[in-house]
């Protein structure tokens, strides 16, 4: 029975973070057990689910939530996340509880953080310092780029994060749409760059070159884009054991504060116990918090790893705004991958003392469906309908953004009184977006207007309501002081010597780029630490 399972390392969660740790350690000869709350899905099934769903904008829909391991669904809303506070809706996040995790659907942007992102407090007097520096992480960033397969501009473009090696692959050539933006914006005071992405520009790691299926979100049909499932498969081939539908609900701690076991429920509600020497919590920033809080004992009344009372606090994301307009020239978004370029002129600078850094990105998603819905809503038929679809498909421009947000202890997740099907509490989130971010969004709005003007815009529509971007950070925050942080610079719980957290929850600043590559780098670093601890380092 699985109740007797034991391993050197028990990894909870099988997304990119958990899978990288499992693959590294299994390859080094350690015994590794992965516990995944959700089921395994096959790529072909996800593709067919997408083709057969009515709302093509709902990226969660191709991944139906398991009853025993629900994840957020919004159309219709399954109320899994209980959202409160003035900006509750801005944290209506998407994530997946399935084997492989949420990188099944992402735009594959594989940015490094900037050196100053790690030292916000000491450099700009706001936010927090991580306690580790960019230089500590630089070698791991490169290893992560090799593992994920990152293509990027090897032409000398400075993205602000110093590198010692070139990208493993050269970047894909820009789409006509992106190239026009590149030419027009860079000639008019903006800095628009080709962005590094975990997407193949040539055959790499036994996966094909991107051929522009334009469906990175919600599913790359051909595996040219990296997803955590690739390292799950590799970890299994290297000898790691994966248990699916294993919903961890408690970590068991001994008198010396070491974690000795993980308890999980199967879909029928039966309980099982697995033991290990080391435990890696890699169940995403919210589900990991859930497990720590559910594991409360008499001694650890506020939950495990929580002597600082910071578990679940400092929730961050990248509040996003957007703009859509019709350009005065046909640009034909939708040829090539869904995103290729970003505007990066406000990722860093003295302004960060006062307002949030940000990154803007041009959407290169096929617009046919939106164009059609609009044309139909105009009541058109016949040739007029076809002409309108064609015009809007060719001329629609959509730009979105990520804004930095400061870590605030009151932005937090708690366990709700409401329970899921297994009787486990749902996450309850309280969220407010402060002036620091709002000020920056005003500046972003002006930038949108300026870009619109450069393209002779018509029908410009600003979306100034902050949208969630599903970059869940801060919930098990890193820091050098155990009194105000949850993990140390090696992602190890201050309170538990054999508990590591491989999740974007450790990130102590949000910066202006998505967190996946940083999660991957931190996870590889955790794997190195554990290899040494287990005597498996080569």
């Amino acid at each position, binding site marked *: 029975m699985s109740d007797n399972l034991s391993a050197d390392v028990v990894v909870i969660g099988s997304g990119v973070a958990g899978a990288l740790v499992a693959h590294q350690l299994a390859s080094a000869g350690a015994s590794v057990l992965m516990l995944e709350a959700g089921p395994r899905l096959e790529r072909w099934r996800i*593709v067919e689910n*997408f*083709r*057969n*769903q*009515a*709302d*093509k904008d709902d990226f969660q829909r191709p991944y139906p939530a398991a009853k025993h391991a629900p994840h957020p669904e919004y*159309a*219709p809303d399954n109320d899994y996340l209980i959202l409160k506070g003035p900006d509750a809706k801005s944290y209506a996040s998407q994530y997946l509880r399935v084997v492989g995790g949420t990188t099944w659907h992402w735009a594959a942007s594989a940015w490094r953080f900037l050196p100053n992102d790690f030292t916000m407090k000491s450099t700009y007097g706001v936010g927090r310092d991580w306690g580790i520096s960019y230089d500590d992480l630089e070698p791991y960033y490169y290893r992560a780029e090799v593992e994920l397969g990152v293509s990027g501009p090897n032409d000398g473009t400075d993205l602000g994060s110093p590198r010692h090696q070139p990208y493993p692959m050269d970047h*894909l*050539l*820009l*789409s*006509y749409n992106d*190239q026009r933006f590149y030419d027009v914006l860079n000639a008019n005071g903006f800095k628009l760059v080709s962005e590094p992405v975990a997407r193949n*520009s040539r055959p790499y790691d036994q996966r094909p*070159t*991107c*051929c*522009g*299926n*334009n*469906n990175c979100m919600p*599913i790359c*049909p*051909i595996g040219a884009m990296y997803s955590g499932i690739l390292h799950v498969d590799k970890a299994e081939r290297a000898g790691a054991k994966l248990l699916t539908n294993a919903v961890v609900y408690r970590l068991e701690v001994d008198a010396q504060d070491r974690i000795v076991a993980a308890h999980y429920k199967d879909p029928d509600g039966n309980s099982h116990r697995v033991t290990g020497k080391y435990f890696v919590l890699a169940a995403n920033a919210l589900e990991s918090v859930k497990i720590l809080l559910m594991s409360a004992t008499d001694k650890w009344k506020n939950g495990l790893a929580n002597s600082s009372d910071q578990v679940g606090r400092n929730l961050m994301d990248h509040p996003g705004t957007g703009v859509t307009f019709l350009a005065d020239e*046909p640009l*034909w978004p*939708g*040829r*090539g991958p869904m995103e290729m370029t970003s505007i990066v002129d406000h990722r860093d600078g003295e302004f960060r003392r006062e307002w949030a850094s940000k990154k803007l990105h041009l959407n290169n*998603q*096929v617009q*046919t*469906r939106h*164009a*059609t*819905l609009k044309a*139909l809503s105009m*009541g058109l*038929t*016949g*040739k*007029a*309908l*076809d*002409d309108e*679809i*064609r015009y809007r*498909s*060719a001329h629609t421009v959509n730009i979105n953004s990520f804004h930095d947000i400061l870590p605030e202890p009151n932005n937090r997740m708690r366990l709700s009184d409401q329970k899921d099907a297994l009787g486990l509490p749902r996450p309850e989130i309280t969220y407010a977006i402060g002036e620091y971010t709002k000020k920056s969004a005003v500046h972003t709005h002006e930038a949108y207007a300026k870009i619109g003007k450069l393209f002779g815009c018509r029908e410009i529509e600003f979306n100034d309501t902050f949208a969630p971007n599903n970059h869940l950070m801060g919930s098990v925050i890193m820091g050098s002081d155990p009194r105000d942080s949850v993990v140390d610079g090696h992602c190890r719980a201050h309170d538990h010597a054999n508990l590591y957290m491989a999740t974007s929850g450790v990130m102590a600043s949000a910066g202006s780029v998505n967190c996946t590559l940083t999660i991957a780098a931190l996870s590889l670093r955790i794997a190195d630490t554990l290899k040494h601890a287990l005597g498996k380092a080569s």
Partner: protein
Amino acid sequence: MSTHGRDDARRAGQLPAMPERRRLLIGAGLVAGTLALSGSWVRTALAQSAAAADVAQNANFLALSRLLTGWPALDARMGERLYAALSGEDHRFASQVAALADFAKKGGHANVEALTAALDAQQDELAKTLRRIVAAWYTGVVGEGPNARVVIAYADALMFQPVKDVLMPPTYCQAAPNYWVAKPPMA
């Protein structure tokens, strides 16, 4: 992915190769024999359905759909499924289809835009039915609301036809990597 519409029609030899699909309905091959009698694009299209009276309802719907969308080679099976879904959500749908066909037959409108305008002016309910039928063929989806919508078709939805020389339905690959670098057609 199967395709329908003008390319299939051309391959089947039904229609001359013409760049503008709106002209297909009044293409010489299709209407030469009947134009003099009917003097109307409408009667021509609906006449096709009379020959298939054994599956009258579906055939009538398909004929009407050809008329309303302007696409001559609609997929019959997709038509059957759309008809079933549209009828399923509105019990008056069958009679509205008949009324719409009747209105179209009598009107002598030059094209579907003219028919739409006439209905907007005189028959509000039928105008709505017309647009429901057009929307169903173009989006491949029938119904309202997150739970009520039925997907009848994806890649075969007509919305992809007006742009198919430039864009693919997402998930499908158009050409070799980097095809996207080239300047697309500007029209």
